[in-house]
């Protein structure tokens, strides 16, 4: 799949945080995600949504992110303290 544009990447990361796949952005340090963490979060979202777990923001994944949905997160919010560990 063509690499997502910067704007799609930003949309994707905001979306993944909002619905519990990534820890909420940390206003002090900003959102420093390793590529591996991002890929894992994308795979988790793809599995939950019944997509192939490619781990990248492919067109099908971006389309699902634009689908009308419930505001509540799919997974319990990822506790930042757990991440720091």
């Amino acid at each position, binding site marked *: 799949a063509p690499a997502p544009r910067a704007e799609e990447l930003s949309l994707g990361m905001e979306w993944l945080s909002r619905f519990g796949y990534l820890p909420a952005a940390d206003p002090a340090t900003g959102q420093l995600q390793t590529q591996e963490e991002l890929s894992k979060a994308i795979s988790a979202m793809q599995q939950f949504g019944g997509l192939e777990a490619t781990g990248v923001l492919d067109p099908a994944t971006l389309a699902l992110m634009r*689908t*009308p949905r419930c505001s509540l997160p799919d997974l319990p919010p990822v506790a930042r303290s757990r991440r720091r560990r």
Partner: protein
Amino acid sequence: QAQAPTKWSKRNLSWRVRTFPRDSPLGRDTVRALMYYALKVWSDIAPLNFHEVAGSTADLQIDFSRAEHNDRYPFDGPGGTVAHAFFPGDRHAAGDAHFDDDEAWTFRSADAHGMDLFAVAVHEFGHAIGLGHVAATGSIMQPYYQGPVGDPLRYGLPYEDRVRVWQLYGVRDSVSPTAQPDTPEPEEPPPLPEPPDNRSSTAPQRDVPHRCSAHFDAVAQIRGEAFFFKGRYFWRLTRDRHLVSLQPAQMHRFWRGLPRHLDGVDAVYERTSDHKIVFFRGDRYWVFKDNNVEEGYPRPISDFSLPPGGVDAAFAWAHNDRTYFFKDQLYWRYDDHTRSMDPGYPAQGPLWRGVPSRLDDAMRWSDGASYFFRGREYWKVLDGELEAAAGYPQSTARDWLVCGEPRAGVSVGGAQGGPQGRTQDGPAVCSCSA
């Protein structure tokens, strides 16, 4: 499934639509009626009672709001997030539901771009009683909007959603009014605008069979649980032989991939070689992995070297690890491991003395015995025996489906009651645990 926190400790919950959609074609009465029916979907199957109130003390406050509206889930205009609700444990807004007033809320509308208010409300009230999101594609609790779910007066929850709410609150012991149209409603339900001339897609559930008078099409032990099939429905008993619900589940909603027009099955069994589940109807069969049909089915039963005409019953006998197929007076013996029919079959039944040749179905149960079903009766054959146990046949309805004494006209064998441990008085329905 996201961790679904907490549940209501009380069973009577009040609700109120506090703010309505501003410039929506849906009138206030329609919105209130849709909320009533969306809540009723859950109270039909769980021991919860919802009643509308006027004051601001309602347990479930329902609002139509826009953008930022003083909670942690601001809306985002048309599309995107369309609604949310708060779990029972939420400190400030437990049970409240918010709908995005920027959406084009519709009801019984062909408009593909609108947002079906009933479908979304059922989902949100699932959260309000404690259910989280699930990935299951058939579930009403999956996070993505999937379009309208049909007529509110006939909508029935997918089976997996029922099981999850039963795990939270247990089974509602009164039969579901929506499945028994003649049950008087406790209060006058609010009117819904007439449906357009195209009738709703979901078939009326007037064909719901009653478990106490049914002759079952098929009976099977699947993953340790017993399934009794009748028409488009089935009942399920847990491993310890407790009926999951007095009401049957809709076969197509749980066994995914059967053709919509299929109005029943002839036989079902779990293959011992790989634990897949085989459904027979006429000259065709389907293989399921868990409750999803596998690619490439249906296939012809000639795969089993069976002649055209279908089977009445199928049964995997653990005693010799063979699968038996029955049709009229004949039976075949099949090896599921080598996928071949044993030589010298068909043979003339019955194989087990005292058991009728013609069967509806048969299954092995967790007590090691085999059970053979025909009409409203069943026979028990102890493990390794070739003869029906004394005192059989007995009443299937009474011993398996928690019915009273068999109806007049059902001949029941000797004095022995049904399986040990079953009290003769009152149904012992137990809510689902698995």
